[in-house]
C-alpha cells in the first residue's frame, strides 16, 4: 500500500524543476560520489566548526537525495538503500536553503580535492536553482536579483545617477592626473576596450574605478564604458537562475556590439569575471565575436610591453595576495595579479595555500548579501584569518570587490592588523606617472558651506571624524545618541549624516529607518560609518541591508577603521552630486 503524502505545491515544483535540470555533468557529479570523505577537510565550514554536517559530501547529499530517488537505478526501487529521498514540505525546502546558501560559498575547493571529480558547487547551485524558482532564497539575493532584472544592475543605480557619478569621477581624474584630457569615456564607439564594472564601484567604492581609469589613461588605451549594460556582476551565478545569468550577460555583450568594441574587459570582480567570461555565453547560448578579459590581464600586458612603468618603491608595504575563488579556481587568473603586485610593492609574500588551493574569503557565493548567515560566515572565517595572520603582511591584496568585503569583515572580527586593497589600486599607486600628480587642492569656498552631522556613540570616533572633516573644510556637529541626533537634525539642518549602526539603546539601524521614513529627513544623504558587532556579528550587518533594500540604500558606506581618503571622497562625491 502506498503511503499518501500531501506534498506541498512548492516541494512538488522543486522536484519537477530538479528533474529538468539534469545534464550530463550534473548526473555524473551526483552519481559518482563514493562517500569516501576525502573532501571533508578542504571545506572551511568543516575545518572551523568540526561539525560533520558541514562536510561537503553531507551537504551535497541534501541535494543528491533527489538524484538518488529519481535517477539512480537502485534508488528508484529502494531509495533509502542509496540515500534517496524526496521533498515533501516547505520546511524541507527551507532546510535546504540553510545548506545550499548558508553552509556553502560554492568555492569549489572541495571539488579540487575529490578523487572522483565531483563538482559540489554544481550540485549546490542546482539546489539553489530549484529553490529560486519557488521564490525561496535569502532576502538579499532576491532583492539584488530583482534590481538586476528591473534596472540592469545590482545596486539599482539609475542611468542618470550612473552618468552623474562618472562625470564627478572625471573631474577627480583630471585633478589627480593634472590632465584635462583624462576622462572616463561613455558610449564612445569603436574603442579597443569596453569596460564593465561592479556597481559597488559606482555607488560605494569609486577609488577602484578611478585607479583603473588612471592606468588606462597612462597606457593611452582606447576605452569606454557603456551607459547601458555596464554591470559585470551576475546574481544568476549565485541564485542558480540561468535566465538571469543570460540576461545580465546579454546586457554587457549587447553593449560591446552596440559600441563596436574590440574586446570586453571586466573589472576586479571575481564572480563578475567568471560569469561574464565563462558562464553567461553558455547560459545565453550565445557565440560571441569578441574576447573577454579581466582588467588584470590587460594591465599585465601593459607592463610586459612597457606601455606603463611601475615603481615598487612607491608602495613600501608588506603585501600578500588572496586568490578570489571565482577568479582563480574557477576563472584561471592566478599569475597576472602576482606579476603585477610583485612589480608594484616592495615586499610581496605568498599566502599558503594559494592559487587553486586557496581558501575562500568566506564571502563568496553571494554570502555578503545574506545577513542571516553572517554569524556562521564569520565563525568559519577563522580558517582564512589564520592563513592571513601567518603571512605577517600589512596589506592583503585581492582582485574582487566581494572578497574586499569578506576580508574586511573577518580582519575586523579577528582583530588582525591588516588592510585590504585591490590589485589595481596598488598598481595605480605605483604608476611612475604618479610622480607628476598634483595634490588636489581643497577649495574651501566650495566646501565650507556643507555641514556634516557625525553620529557615533564612541567619543574617540566623533573626535576623529569631526577633526578630519573640519581639516578638510566641513562644518561639523555631532551626536552620541539617536535622541541627540534628532535634536541636532531639527536645529542644525545638516547637509549630510555619517551614521554608526552599532550604538547602545536604539540601534543606528532604527535611526536610519526613522530618517528614511520621515519626509522631513528623507532627502539628507547618509554615509554609514560602521563595522561588525563582535558580540553579535549578524545583528547589524550593515552590508546585508545594502543588498536587502526594504529601505532605500544609504548613499555611502564606509567600514571602520575608516579609510580617510575613501571617506572624504565619498562625502565629496555625494555632496557635489546632490548640489548638481
Amino acid at each position, binding site marked *: 500500500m502506498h503511503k499518501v503524502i500531501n506534498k506541498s505545491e512548492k516541494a512538488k515544483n522543486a522536484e519537477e524543476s530538479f528533474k529538468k535540470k*539534469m*545534464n*550530463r*555533468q*550534473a*548526473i*555524473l*557529479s551526483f*552519481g*559518482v*560520489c*563514493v*562517500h*569516501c*570523505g*576525502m*573532501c571533508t*577537510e*578542504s571545506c572551511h565550514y*568543516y575545518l572551523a566548526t568540526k561539525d*560533520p*554536517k558541514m*562536510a561537503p*559530501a*553531507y551537504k551535497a547529499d541534501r541535494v543528491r537525495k533527489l538524484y538518488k530517488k529519481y535517477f539512480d*537505478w*537502485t534508488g528508484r526501487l529502494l531509495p*533509502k*538503500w*542509496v*540515500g534517496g529521498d524526496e521533498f515533501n514540505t516547505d520546511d524541507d525546502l527551507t532546510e535546504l536553503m540553510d545548506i545550499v546558501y548558508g553552509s556553502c560559498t560554492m568555492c569549489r575547493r572541495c*571539488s*579540487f*580535492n575529490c*578523487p*572522483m*571529480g*565531483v563538482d559540489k558547487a554544481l550540485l549546490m547551485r542546482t539546489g539553489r536553482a530549484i529553490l529560486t524558482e519557488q521564490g525561496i532564497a535569502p532576502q538579499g539575493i532576491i532583492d539584488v536579483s530583482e534590481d538586476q532584472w528591473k534596472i540592469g544592475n545590482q545596486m539599482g543605480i539609475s542611468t542618470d545617477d550612473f552618468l552623474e557619478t562618472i562625470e564627478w569621477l572625471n573631474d577627480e581624474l583630471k585633478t589627480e592626473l593634472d590632465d584635462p584630457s583624462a576622462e572616463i569615456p561613455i558610449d564612445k564607439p569603436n574603442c579597443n576596450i569596453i569596460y564593465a564594472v561592479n556597481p559597488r564601484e559606482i555607488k560605494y567604492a569609486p577609488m577602484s574605478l578611478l585607479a583603473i581609469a588612471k592606468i588606462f589613461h597612462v597606457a593611452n588605451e582606447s576605452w569606454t564604458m557603456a551607459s547601458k549594460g555596464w554591470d559585470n556582476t551576475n546574481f544568476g551565478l549565485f541564485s542558480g537562475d540561468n535566465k538571469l545569468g543570460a540576461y545580465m550577460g546579454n546586457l554587457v555583450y549587447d553593449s560591446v556590439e552596440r559600441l563596436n568594441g574590440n574586446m570586453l574587459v571586466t573589472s576586479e570582480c571575481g564572480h563578475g569575471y567568471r560569469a561574464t*567570461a*565563462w558562464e553567461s*555565453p*553558455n547560459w545565453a*547560448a550565445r*557565440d*560571441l565575436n569578441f*574576447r*573577454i578579459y579581466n582588467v588584470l590581464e590587460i594591465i599585465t600586458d601593459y607592463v610586459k610591453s612597457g606601455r606603463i612603468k611601475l615603481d615598487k618603491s612607491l608602495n613600501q608595504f608588506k603585501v600578500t595576495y588572496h586568490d578570489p575563488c571565482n577568479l*582563480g*579556481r*574557477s*576563472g*584561471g587568473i592566478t*599569475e597576472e595579479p602576482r606579476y603585477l603586485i610583485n612589480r608594484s610593492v616592495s615586499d610581496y609574500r*605568498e599566502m*599558503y*595555500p*594559494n*592559487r*587553486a*588551493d586557496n581558501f575562500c574569503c568566506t564571502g563568496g557565493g553571494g554570502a555578503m548579501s545574506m545577513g542571516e548567515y553572517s554569524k556562521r560566515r564569520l565563525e568559519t572565517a577563522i580558517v582564512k584569518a589564520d592563513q592571513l595572520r601567518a603571512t605577517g603582511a600589512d596589506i592583503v591584496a585581492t582582485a574582487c570587490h566581494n572578497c574586499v568585503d569578506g576580508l574586511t569583515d573577518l580582519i575586523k572580527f579577528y582583530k588582525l592588523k591588516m588592510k585590504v586593497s585591490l590589485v589595481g589600486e596598488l598598481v595605480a599607486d605605483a604608476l611612475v606617472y604618479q610622480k607628476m600628480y598634483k595634490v588636489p587642492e581643497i577649495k574651501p569656498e566650495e566646501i565650507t558651506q556643507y555641514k556634516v552631522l557625525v553620529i557615533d556613540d564612541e567619543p574617540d570616533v566623533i573626535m576623529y571624524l569631526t577633526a578630519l572633516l573640519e581639516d578638510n573644510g566641513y562644518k561639523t556637529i555631532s551626536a552620541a545618541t539617536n535622541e541627540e541626533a534628532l535634536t541636532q537634525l531639527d536645529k542644525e539642518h545638516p547637509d549630510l549624516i555619517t551614521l554608526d549602526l552599532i550604538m547602545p539603546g536604539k540601534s543606528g539601524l532604527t535611526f536610519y529607518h526613522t530618517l528614511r521614513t520621515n519626509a522631513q529627513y528623507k532627502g539628507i544623504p547618509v554615509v554609514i560609518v560602521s563595522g561588525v558587532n563582535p558580540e553579535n556579528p549578524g545583528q547589524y550587518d550593515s552590508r546585508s541591508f545594502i543588498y536587502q533594500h526594504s529601505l532605500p540604500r544609504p548613499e555611502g558606506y564606509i567600514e571602520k577603521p575608516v579609510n580617510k581618503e575613501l571617506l572624504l571622497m565619498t562625502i565629496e562625491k555625494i555632496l557635489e552630486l546632490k548640489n548638481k
Partner: protein
Amino acid sequence: MLELLQHEVQYLALSIMGIAYISKIFWILHFKPMKERTPAKGSHSKAIIASYFCIALPWTMESTIKKWYKWLEFSVFHIGIAIAIIASFLIPEAKHLMTPNVILIFQIIIAISFFVLLIRLTRRIFSPVNRLISHPDDYFSLFLMIIWFFVAFFAMNMDEGSIFFSSYFILTALLIVYVPFSKMSHYILWPFSRYYFGKHFGHRGTYPKIRQ
C-alpha cells in the same frame, strides 16, 4: 556443480554486468552535456589527462597529500580487487599460471586488502563524518568486499573441495551482478566525471593546477 560455478555462472554474471554497463553508458550519454561557447584559456587535453592521473599522483591534491594513508589504502584495495577478479579467470581458464609464487603474491595482496577494508569499515562506523555520509549501500558494498576478500584468500589455496573455493565463485558472481546497481558502479561513471572535470577547468586554465 563447481564447473557450473566457475564457467556458466561467471559468464552469466559477466553478461549481466556487461549489459548493465553498456546500458549505463547509453543512459549517461542520453543526457546532454553543457557546452563551452568561449575560446579556451588552457588546454583541454592536458587537463583531461591530468584529471585522469590525479589518482595516480597523490601529490597533486591536498587531500591525498594530507591523508596519504587513505590514498595508500585506496591503491592497495583496488589492486586487491583487480587481483581477485583476475584470479577468478585464471583458476578456471589458465590454472597452470597459478604457480605457488603467484598464489603467494595474490594471497599477500588479498590479505592486505582485506585488512584495509576492515579499517575502512571501522572508520565508516566510528568516524562521525563518515558515519553521517554513509547509506546502507555504502556499508553493504564494503561488507560484501570484505567477505569476498576473506574467501578469496583461502580459495587461492586451490583446494576445490573447500567451502571457500565454491563460495569464492558464488561471491564473485554476486559481486559482478551487484556492482552496476551499487556505489561500486563508480567504475563506469569515473572516467566520464574526470573527463568533464578536466575539460571544464582546463577550459578556464586552472587545471592542471599551477604548483605553489
